[in-house]
């Protein structure tokens, strides 16, 4: 379909459309049926002035400048639900929403909270604004000592890319330690980068900061090249996504797996170690960038099922149709902004679903989630008994570590 252009001024819509068409599978945007599935499945579609379908409509009818002027795209948590259910397979999240956020960012239309996360990433290499020198502080006191590659320079089998929140967030550090202990028990020869590791940059990219993402990728690439390892594992699905799908086109290409995949491959070795029973009904929350985007649904569930005493229950939204925790695409750094618009949090919806499913534990595999869900539990009635646990924490508990 050809777009009619205004003869009077260079059209925002035309320039924007051209840039989307140039992206991978971007030309599919021309095949939009305006069915509205994307806007319906979008967890915040109901609150956006321009949900995805309407954005495409605005693009076609040449008033995309209105979309850029509104701030509705900052409600997008890049959860990819729109793209997963689009009958025309339009890369809505990857192309349309991310490009729109880039435009907003270039125009300086950035909520302050997001701005500081991006500035922190630029300055410190992590969105939390923590000292890069303290990136491996979570490992202090662990025995055996975690292998810091800069110190030992030993070749390893596995480079563990720990990531921002798993390294710094006080709630997540216990899960990070748990995974270190599990890797040790399994006899894995692994190393970490510590202060040399930079943010993977993926959520910053999905929040519209492509340039910053590229800088992070280049810096991580330079560090990866310094050491000898066979593969990378990540704690964070966002890091996994970046390393798997985005870094290769920037010349940084390594075999990479999320830690749940890596552990599931060793399930026969792990099973006999799971001696302590965890008698609980557990609901597993599919992280968007593990499940929906990268198709990893079963490994985390199978790890949980291997723990004696565990009864796995499913929530209303699961697998491909999982509900985002609200932390993706910059959502982690837009909490106040999104609260102001929606007066609800996706993490709260999710916690209600877990309670409705009769879960006693909400199991997660993404470092954004424990703090988000635990905060939500505090505000939801009847959720007080629900516990949030990282899969690594549950495995370590069952192993008696």
């Amino acid at each position, binding site marked *: 379909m050809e777009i009619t252009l205004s003869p009077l001024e260079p059209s925002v819509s035309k320039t924007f459309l051209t840039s989307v068409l140039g992206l991978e599978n971007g030309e599919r945007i021309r095949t939009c049926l305006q069915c509205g599935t994307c806007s319906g499945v979008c967890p915040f579609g109901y609150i956006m002035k321009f949900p995805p379908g309407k954005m495409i409509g605005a693009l076609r009818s040449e008033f995309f400048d209105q979309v850029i002027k509104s701030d509705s795209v900052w409600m997008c948590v890049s959860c990819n639900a729109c793209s997963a259910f689009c009958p025309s397979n339009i890369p809505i999240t990857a192309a349309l929403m991310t490009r729109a956020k880039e435009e907003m960012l*270039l125009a*300086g239309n950035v909520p302050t909270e997001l701005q500081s996360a991006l*500035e922190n990433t630029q300055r410190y290499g992590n969105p939390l604004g*923590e000292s890069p020198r303290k990136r491996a502080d979570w490992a202090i006191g662990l025995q055996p000592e975690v292998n810091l590659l800069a110190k030992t320079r030993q070749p390893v089998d596995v480079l563990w890319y720990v990531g921002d929140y798993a390294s710094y967030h006080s709630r997540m550090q216990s899960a990070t330690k748990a995974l270190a202990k599990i890797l040790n028990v399994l006899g894995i020869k692994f190393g970490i980068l510590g202060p040399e590791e930079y943010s993977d940059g993926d959520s910053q990219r999905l929040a*519209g*900061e*492509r*340039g*910053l993402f590229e*800088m992070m990728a280049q810096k991580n690439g330079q560090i990866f090249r310094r050491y000898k390892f066979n593969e990378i594992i990540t704690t964070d699905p966002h890091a996994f996504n970046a390393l798997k799908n985005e870094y290769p086109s920037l010349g940084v290409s390594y075999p990479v797996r999320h830690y749940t995949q890596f552990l599931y491959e060793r399930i026969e070795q792990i099973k006999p170690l799971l001696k302590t029973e965890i008698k609980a009904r557990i609901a597993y929350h599919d992280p968007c960038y593990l499940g929906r985007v990268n198709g990893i649904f079963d490994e985390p569930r199978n790890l949980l099922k291997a723990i004696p005493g565990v009864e796995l229950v499913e929530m209303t939204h699961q697998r491909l149709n999982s509900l985002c925790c609200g932390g993706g695409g910059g959502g982690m750094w837009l909490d106040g902004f999104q609260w102001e618009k929606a007066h609800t949090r996706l993490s709260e919806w999710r916690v209600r679903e877990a309670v409705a499913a009769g879960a006693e534990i909400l199991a997660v595999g993404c470092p954004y989630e424990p703090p988000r869900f635990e905060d939500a539990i505090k505000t939801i009635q009847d959720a007080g008994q629900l516990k949030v646990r990282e899969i690594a924490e549950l495995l370590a508990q069952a192993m008696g570590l």
Partner: protein
Amino acid sequence: MKIAVPVKFVPDLVEELNIDPSGTALDTAWLRLIINEFDDHAVEQAILLKEKEGGQVTVITIESEGADDFLFAAAAKGTDQLIKLTGDFSHANNHGLARVYADILKELQPDLILTGVQAHNDLDGSVGPLLAEQLGLPYVGYVAGVSVMGDKVIARKEYSGGLVAEIEIKLPAVLGIQASEQPPRYIAYSKIRQVMGTAKIEEKTVAALDLSGGTTVSRMFQPEVAQRATMLEGGTDEVADKLVSIFKELGTL
């Protein structure tokens, strides 16, 4: 209108501060420097004024870690001229800085000089008033909003208790900025990278600084536990219980 913004860098509190063996200064081994937050607001205020009134903005800084990055980011925001002073600033104090800034500002002849109202490492007064004294110009500090009226500006000065005064000042003048009218803007990293290829940083060498009038530090030290303070030890619940009983003892509960 020509606006000049002299800025400085201060220790970044993301790293722990240590005292060097002399006991009179910070240990610079792990010290990271960051733009003084108030100076960042002064740059933003200058850009806002330029966008509203037209004119030219010059940002001046001394050579330090991160100075180039800061200047390029300022250029991406709309700064026209970038000046970096080079020389030995290892013992610089604000008296010395005000003198070197004054020398360069006498050459530039700006209509308005904006600078951060304070910095957390100001040991000998803040730069703004010292600079005004060197230049023989009027100074108003704690300013959170500036509008131009011909050859005058109206500065909104903040007082405690939420009071605001509007003060009319004849230009040229020096203003100490407490906060810009809008928070400092975000510049996409790709824009900064673009500017790095085109913007030019003028370097000017400065002779030895005249530090007279400044303070002499006799001792620098970490906060020390006062005799009256009681440190509560134990787990969260234990500490909470002790705290409650102390409040009860003191009759506040």
